[in-house]
């Protein structure tokens, strides 16, 4: 099926994410059917905060492998690693073709492109993914998370 790169990702994000009002920073409330979808959507939402308007190509791939002592730490580490790729390699996330979470280990393949300042409207820099009011919870049959970013 042909589709504009990244569009599905954006639509998916907007339906499952609430952007929170925080005085100095910004945050997200995310809802998803599975833990993998929760982590993918959180990542997409973080990149939506960084670069809200453009869709991205998938010319660069990275693999990420993380283990953490608890699920909240795993989410913080996952988002921090993606932010590190943005900060050091100017990587903009377009898609997460593969993601697997097995207990407290995560493996993912992510694809995207390098920032082109002539094309991409880069909105903000995320300094860090914070632990303030952070949660990852299973609510009935859904997963929910709240994350506040320092910007």
């Amino acid at each position: 099926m042909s589709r504009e790169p990244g569009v599905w990702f954006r639509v998916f994000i907007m339906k499952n994410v609430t952007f929170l009002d925080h005085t100095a920073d910004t945050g997200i409330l995310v809802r998803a059917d599975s833990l993998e979808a929760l982590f993918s959507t959180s990542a997409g939402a973080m990149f939506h905060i960084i670069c809200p308007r453009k869709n991205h190509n998938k010319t660069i791939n990275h693999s990420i492998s993380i283990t953490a002592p608890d699920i909240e730490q795993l989410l913080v580490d996952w988002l921090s690693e993606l932010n590190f790729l943005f900060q050091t390699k100017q990587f903009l996330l377009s898609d997460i073709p593969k993601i697997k979470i097995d207990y407290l280990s995560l493996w993912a393949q992510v694809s995207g492109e390098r920032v082109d300042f002539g094309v991409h409207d880069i909105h903000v820099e995320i300094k860090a993914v914070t632990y303030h009011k952070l949660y990852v919870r299973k609510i009935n049959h859904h997963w929910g998370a709240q994350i506040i970013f320092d910007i």
Partner: protein
Amino acid sequence: MKENLIKINDFLYEIPKTGKMKVPARIYATENMLADILSDNAPEQAKNVACLPGIVGYSFAMPDMHWGYGFPIGGVAAFDMDDGVISPGGVGYDINCGVRLLRTDLSRKDVQGKITHIVDALFASIPSGVGSTGPVRLSAADEKKVLTEGAHWAVANGYGDREDLDKIEETGRMPGAVPDYVSDHALKRGKAQLGTLGSGNHFVEVGYVEQVFDEKIAARLGLFKNQVTVIVHTGSRGLGHQICDDFIKVMLGAADKYGIYLPDRQLCCAPVRSPEGQRYLGAMAAGVNFAFCNRQLITHWTREAFMRALCAGPKTVNMRVVYEVAHNIAKIEEHKVNGKNKKLCVHRKGATRAFGPGHPAVPESYRDIGQPVLIPGDMGRYSYVLVGTENAMRETFGSTCHGAGRVLSRKKALKRAQGRSLYRELLDKGIYVKASSKATMAEEMPEAYKNVSNVVDAVAGAGISKIVARLKPMGVIKG
């Protein structure tokens, strides 16, 4: 919350000790500021800080306080060296975010009609905005030298004068930095970002001395009416952010290990003298030095931009450092507690050191007037120069406010900016702004901040700082 507040005086309110609080919380504010302050989560955060082990006196919040993460922004907390803690969240992600004030020999009329040239030259010289990289190419060995030498590394490599260093907190080099405690991730984030402004609320502002409130002290600082000034506001960039991030993970484990109750995970901490605490202090000092060096490089390019834009030599511009303060930092300082001198670990997160006259940490040339305190406002109104007081030493461990403090969330600011040309509005007020992103311009709009005049009136009213001069912006570069 309002019903629980006790009014101590017209500028100070107390939240009494309840639940797990070890000390009361104290908020510096005027009655008019309380509604905004209490509508935010910041007072709750000041209460949370009061629960941490070994906190001494009070958990303080300055009048520019607002909701942060863990500690409130505008928070000051001092901890006992023996049974107190050190918390990376009490310093913040942007370690040694701070403000440098530069003065020139130029007066307002010398730059009339030339502000656009100056601002354009600054924008071309100083990398700003998200993802910006600096022109300084650091080897791994040089980066580690920056982490131990701070602004001294910049001066030794031709960026500025030795004289600049005397007017920086810690003379631009915090002792105790241990680069080996800084992770590879942090070094990688820092490597390309040295000499960059960054985004968000960071800026370089060209202004002038609009009003002098204390002629004698202003003269000692080399300030006079209508003099052209420059404010540089930035910090330790990705290197500092990553150090904080790395050590929050360490401290989450440490809090568990030492049985420390955390009302918010972001407040994670370890005893000051523990191995975890000492490692953080070593890494934090490295981040502090990176920020000192960053502002020194930006100062050098600011001097060059002025000379280029005005076709003037260094003697004509004569740009000198008035002072530089750090407003996200933890320091080991000696203060009087119950009449006795005691070493404390003082956290200032969005708060400025404001040592009074006579303190040995104040540069010798300013020692009799007190430490200069630099309070930037929003880009449409004013910034202030103050000095620290004896009263600040007695009441707040020598601390005061750090800026105007946000009052609108970024989301609300963006909404309010819709359909308006903020660029035009500011230009009509005589302020030329060049920003890397339209969104930053909207988020940083003047009305997103409290009126800085009210904030400094509150700290001056409380006697924890003394107002010296007011600066008005003429041109700003934003990240």
